């Protein structure tokens, strides 16, 4: 058995972080949104589906902080850990994307669970055909997980100071982007881009970003010490 497969199995020995917790969080958030909708009546278009994507980022952080050190103590290499982890998350995200697409179809079929609550149909994104919902969900789940691993990797490699620089760097990049766009009066163009791009096109952009994060994470983990 290859070391990467051992790592994937290692994550599933007790699949709390990557399997149980994301869906438990989503179920809890669903109920929290459902109760007021039932009491006050719909329609209630909610964006709370974001909770599962946000949790995947959190899972990415914990995977590096908590799971990596023990895996290395058991004789996994950093490369095997990364490849095994990413492969598992990609496989899980395929299934999770299908589940989200299925739940969305069910939501549509039941008129928003009978109370006009649109939990799995957030506005702007995930509004197309089922396969686009699946593809976009899949890409976003992987992307957010990889983004989370970056926080863990930076923390492990450069400690808290590195983490502060990493966060501050992203804020600076965002501010510079806002400054440039504002200076050129280009907000209309940005709005036009996001309102005209197709779901498949946006998913492609996010996939490219995920691929870049994945490649960068692979390079980062090779220098991590525990």
């Amino acid at each position, binding site marked *: *058995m290859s*070391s990467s497969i*051992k790592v994937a*199995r*290692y994550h599933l*020995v*007790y699949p*709390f*972080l990557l399997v149980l917790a994301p869906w438990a969080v989503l179920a809890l958030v669903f109920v929290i949104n459902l109760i007021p909708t039932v009491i006050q009546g719909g329609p209630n278009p909610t964006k709370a589906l974001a909770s599962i994507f946000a949790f995947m980022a959190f899972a990415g952080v914990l995977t590096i*902080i*908590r*799971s990596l*050190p*023990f895996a*290395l*103590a*058991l*004789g*996994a*290499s*950093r*490369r*095997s850990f990364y490849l095994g982890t990413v492969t598992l998350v990609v496989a899980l995200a395929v299934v999770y994307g299908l589940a989200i697409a299925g739940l969305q179809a069910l939501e549509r079929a039941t008129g928003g669970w009978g109370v006009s609550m649109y939990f799995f149909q957030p506005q702007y994104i995930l509004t197309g055909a089922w396969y686009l919902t699946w593809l976009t969900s899949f890409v976003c789940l992987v992307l957010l997980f990889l983004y989370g691993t970056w926080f863990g990797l930076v923390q492990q490699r450069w400690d808290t100071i590195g983490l502060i620089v990493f966060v501050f760097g992203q804020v600076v990049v965002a501010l510079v982007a806002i400054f440039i766009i504002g200076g050129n009066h280009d907000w209309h163009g940005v709005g036009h881009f996001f309102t005209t791009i197709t779901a498949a096109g946006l998913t492609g952009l996010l996939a490219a970003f995920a691929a870049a994060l994945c490649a960068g994470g692979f390079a980062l983990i*090779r*220098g991590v*010490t*525990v």
Partner: protein
Amino acid sequence: MTPAISLTGVSRRYRDQLALDGIDLVIDGPSITGLLGRNGAGKTTLLRIIAAHEFASAGRIAVLGADPVENDAVLARIAFVREDQAFPQFRVRHALEAASSFFPNWDAELAGELAADFELPMNRWVSKLSRGMRSALSVVIGLAARAEVTLFDEPYAGLDAVARGVFYDRLLADYAEHPRVVMLSSHLIDEVSGLLERVVMLDRGRIVLDAAADEVRGAFTRVSGAAEAVEEFVAGRAVLERRRIASQEAAVVAGGLDDGDRPWAQELRVSLEPLSLQQVLIHTSAHAGRQRKEGTSA
């Protein structure tokens, strides 16, 4: 024969601090080696580098004939048990199950016996274990892994005397049946001294002593008695330390004693006492410190 562990000129620098300074060390085959030294001597850094958890700044490392860094074939044959091991959200049984899938020589029966010996609750979350219980879990994994190279870094943190006794007994028993390379860093030097076949002492990142444990035990002797008699006895020997109170003196001499030394000591009415490993460490560290000072002031 390819050495199990071979380090050549290994150094590790953290900014302005040199944690390891030109370490040369070869461990050929099965043995239990004690890695001894004061806090900050570099013991943990050295073990982490051998296990590829840390990178050397300079030098060459070979474990089982190859560089262990990112080498799955070598890493699968190394078990590294460390004092501050972090665990995922696992129960005890999950940690053992995970370990069983990584180590090719894993002995599940031994793991079960050890867990019972240490009274480890299999269903308890690792995060809820006491420090001692967590150390016991690490020890169980380190022993049951039966890895060809097993590294224990202060493995008994928080373990009580009974549990430490279980660890020492089990280590010796399993080593006798399945000889392998074991490196054990420890502060409880006299407690582990009976286990050790070889002693490597570190001081400020350098090896200051590397010898068979039996040689070290007989290599230093405390000579005490009337000052004049002690001076007469130690004349011409390498004296590491002298302490004089009024007319009494105690001196530590290096080098073994010969057959004529004991009758002569009796005649002079001086007592001879071999130094324990812990005392050897104290004197060796002090000696290294004095040499550093002399080197700095020269």
